[in-house]
């Protein structure tokens, strides 16, 4: 913490800006072609939409009405991902259900719409649907089965990065924000970055520069004076229930609207989403109104959502490529755009944005094709056939994985530090030393991102304390920094709780605040 800001220059073949799934995917794709990269993110992996989405591995059926092209893309890509990254995917299957009040014609047409997209879609009786998912409303009138699945984006991004690091020593730097580019003679010469931890400046010199900044892609393009990226922003808000309510992904069979998908995520369920135009990316967060809409709408499909215990809410931003002036942002194409910026007189810069988690691999492939071509590298893309490796230190994001591991190891000395998600001490230790982005001063947030710690009902309020103590014991902290990190972690977790604190969660929150503020005085850390 006391380090003085220093200057540093890093050289790399390709600089990738943005540690979402797209950036991570490009990093891996290029490494498999023998190209060395540096991936940076102003925060950490999955700090953007990749960490704020529904986790639905689309079969494509959701898009059969609005966007046949995307639907087909999703069908193809989801099939590939199920093969190359099964460890990140749960093949839950999906249901589309219409409830009283929904448009019967729309519901009736669904099956025939899936056909041209090549999506397997089976009509089932409503009683069958309720047998599969007992919590479904009894006001169902139409139901279909589709091959939807769920995907853990954190695990996916971590594995992509870990694989790239393993293959050719490409590297990832968290907390490294791009501030500006130095351009000369139709080329970017260097990228000026800031280490957000130490505030030091880092100059990165690369042959090629990739902007995988997601919703921030327009801002980043502007830094290189590129005016050809025009984005609108659509914010989506989701809530996480304490329990997993369904085994399948459940979609409302109607034109896309608020609160109409419930996606299981390991041990929880995620309800969403809303869709709201926003102008400012810095103030994105869930609002009470959005939460209420999601719950109200979701309840029509699954009545238990009205009384479920929620433990978290979050928002993500979809970048929408500005073209048609659509009334509903959900109708805007979910396709992606790859811009080579040749029209902006730059020959070593490109931007990839839009798309979906489901199509991240394809987005990475197209981008890498462009880069490889520019670098005269003729190796073809391998990511559609090469499986992602099982890197040990990346496995902790999967819900239920750490308790399983811990239970099997049966080591009484390996104490559970996060009791909700049952994350043992050994997992924390492994993450600190080996996980992608591990650094000297890894804080609680970074550990939580790489594990399930803090994701259970107590939302980190107990385990934050226990992990911090453990880190002091390990000699990771020697001064107040540990407390500051702990407070920041609680503040960060709270952002996701603020709008859903009622019922049991109000009790949990009161206990948390009594501990953190009443006892430990974390609200007064600076006062002493």
């Amino acid at each position, binding site marked *: 913490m006391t380090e003085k800001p220093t200057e540093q220059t890093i050289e790399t073949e390709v600089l990738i800006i943005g540690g979402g799934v797209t950036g991570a995917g490009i990093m891996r794709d290029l490494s498999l072609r023998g190209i060395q990269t540096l991936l940076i993110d102003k925060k950490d992996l999955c700090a953007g939409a990749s960490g704020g989405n529904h986790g639905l591995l689309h079969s494509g059926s959701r898009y059969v009405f609005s966007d046949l092209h995307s639907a087909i893309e999703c069908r193809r890509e989801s099939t590939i991902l199920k093969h190359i990254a099964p460890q990140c995917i749960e093949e839950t299957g999906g249901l589309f259900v219409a409830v009283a009040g929904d448009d019967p014609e729309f519901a009736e047409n669904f099956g025939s719409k899936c056909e041209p997209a090549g999506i397997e879609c089976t009509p089932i009786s409503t009683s069958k649907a309720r047998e599969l998912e007992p919590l479904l409303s009894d006001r169902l009138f139409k139901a279909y089965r589709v091959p939807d699945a769920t995907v853990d984006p954190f695990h996916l991004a971590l594995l992509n990065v870990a694989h790239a690091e393993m293959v050719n020593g490409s590297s990832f730097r968290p907390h490294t924000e791009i501030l500006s580019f130095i351009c000369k003679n139709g080329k970017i010469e260097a990228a000026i970055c800031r280490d957000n931890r130490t505030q030091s400046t880092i100059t990165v010199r690369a042959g090629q520069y990739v902007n995988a900044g997601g919703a921030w892609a327009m801002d980043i393009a502007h830094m290189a004076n590129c005016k050809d990226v025009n984005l609108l922003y659509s914010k989506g808000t989701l809530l996480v229930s*304490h*329990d*997993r309510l369904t085994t399948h992904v459940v979609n409302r069979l109607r034109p896309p609207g608020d609160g109409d998908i419930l996606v299981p995520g390991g*041990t929880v369920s995620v309800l969403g989403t809303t869709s709201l135009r926003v102008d400012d990316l810095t103030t994105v967060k869930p609002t009470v109104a959005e939460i209420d809409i999601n719950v109200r709408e979701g309840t029509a499909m699954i009545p238990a959502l009205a009384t479920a*215990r929620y433990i978290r809410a979050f928002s993500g931003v979809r970048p929408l490529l500005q073209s048609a002036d659509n009334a509903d942002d959900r109708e805007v194409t979910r396709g992606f755009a790859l811009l080579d910026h040749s029209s902006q007189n730059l020959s070593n810069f490109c931007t990839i944005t839009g798309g979906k988690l489901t199509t991240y691999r394809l987005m990475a492939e197209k981008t890498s094709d462009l880069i490889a071509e520019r670098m005269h590298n003729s190796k073809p893309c391998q990511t559609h056939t090469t499986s992602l490796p099982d890197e040990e230190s990346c496995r902790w994001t999967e*819900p*239920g994985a750490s*308790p*399983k591991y811990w*239970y099997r190891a*049966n*080591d*009484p000395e390996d104490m*559970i530090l996060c*009791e*909700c*998600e*049952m994350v043992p001490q050994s997992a924390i230790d492994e993450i600190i030393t080996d996980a992608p982005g591990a650094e000297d001063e890894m804080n609680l947030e970074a550990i939580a991102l790489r594990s399930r710690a803090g994701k*259970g*009902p*107590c939302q980190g309020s*107990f385990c934050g304390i226990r992990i911090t103590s453990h880190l002091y014991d390990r000699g990771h902290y020697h001064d107040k920094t540990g407390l500051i990190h702990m407070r920041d972690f609680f503040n960060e977790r709270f952002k996701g709780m603020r709008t859903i604190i009622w019922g*049991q969660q109000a*009790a*949990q929150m009161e*206990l948390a605040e009594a501990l953190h503020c009443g006892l430990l005085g974390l609200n007064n850390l600076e006062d002493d």
Partner: protein
Amino acid sequence: MAEPTIPTINFKEKAEELLPQGASFESCLTCGLCSSGCPASGIENMDPRKFIRMAMLGMDEELSSSKWIWACTQCKRCQHVCPMSIDISQLVFLARSNWPQEKKPAGIVRSCQLIQSTDSTSAMGLPPEDFVFVVNDVLEEVRELQPKFKNLEAPMDKKGAHFFVNQNSREPMSEPDEMVPLWKIFDIVGADWTYSSKAWAAENFCMFSGNEKAWFEVIRKRVDAVNKLGCEVWLNTECGHSYYTMWNGINRFGMEVDFKLESLVTYYARWIREGKLPVNSDWNRKNIKFTVQDPCMIVRKAYGDSIAEDMRFVTKALVGEENFIDMQPNRSANYCCGGGGGFLQAGMTEHRRTYGKRKFDQIAATGAAYVLTPCHNCHSQMEDIGHHYGGSYGVVHFWTLICLSLGVLGENERTYLGPDLLECI
């Protein structure tokens, strides 16, 4: 033949069925009060909070086959201290019932089988005729050798008696003289009581073995026997779980009975209050110290603190107020001894003693020379951990001390008295 496998339970689903009103596992704050106060914490690396979280995290396979469920005595202390009143023992019962018979701890299964094997419902398999024989045999001997009790009665199958008295099999089976103090007490207070040749036994390991059907069968036999004799009160003698299994079973299986279930302890208290049992503590000249073990089966899990108060009243009357030292924690908050839930029969000796360490510490902290308890399991377990951890206390039944105080304790009825107590006679 292939090893039988343990089927997997969907705990979350079951939990929802089990607990429709409130107290759902979902409301757990993961605060750990349950684990902190559970003597089974740490055994097999498990504890109640972990059990709930694993259930919530869908680790059904692991939980379904965890051996820990045989180390949790279903004592419900976790629920007692939980701010959300979450009851783990119900899930544990579920898990137990799910184990194939062959895999369950053989001792518990065998005890349950034996209970079913005769009309006695005795876990030691003592048939009705043997029971009748032993009772009469002992009775004759007492009448002969103890002139004071030459008219002592031990009525058998007496229709219309007020009390239907049950008996733990351990007495008729291995220490028959221990029945005598009880008879003497009935004699002194002039109770109208009877044994039954059928369904006389108290113990019920079928509940612990997770065999709901067998549990029901045993209870049915016992209910029938009481009804047949037309008794008003089914009187549970000094045996903790027999009361609970009967009382809880009747409610659980929705059985209609028109007699009352009572524990002998409450009658001791009543008879002392009414002057029918003129006990006093004058004999305790050396101020020997006593403490009391509250069996969770009749205190926390059934009557609550009222019966614990009765036990203390009786104890103080017997040993002198100043010679009674309460264990901490006590009454409804007491720790299970670690012999319950079939633990004593389960063959998991090391785990059982680990569990019992808390009880041992509790007893040791009182510094008492004797523990009084109206429960056979507690009795055996406390003796065992006492030996194991090097304690110097003894364990006695209430009936022994009552007769000692009344000066009517026969020669053969002093098995559990140490030299210090023997001197007081």
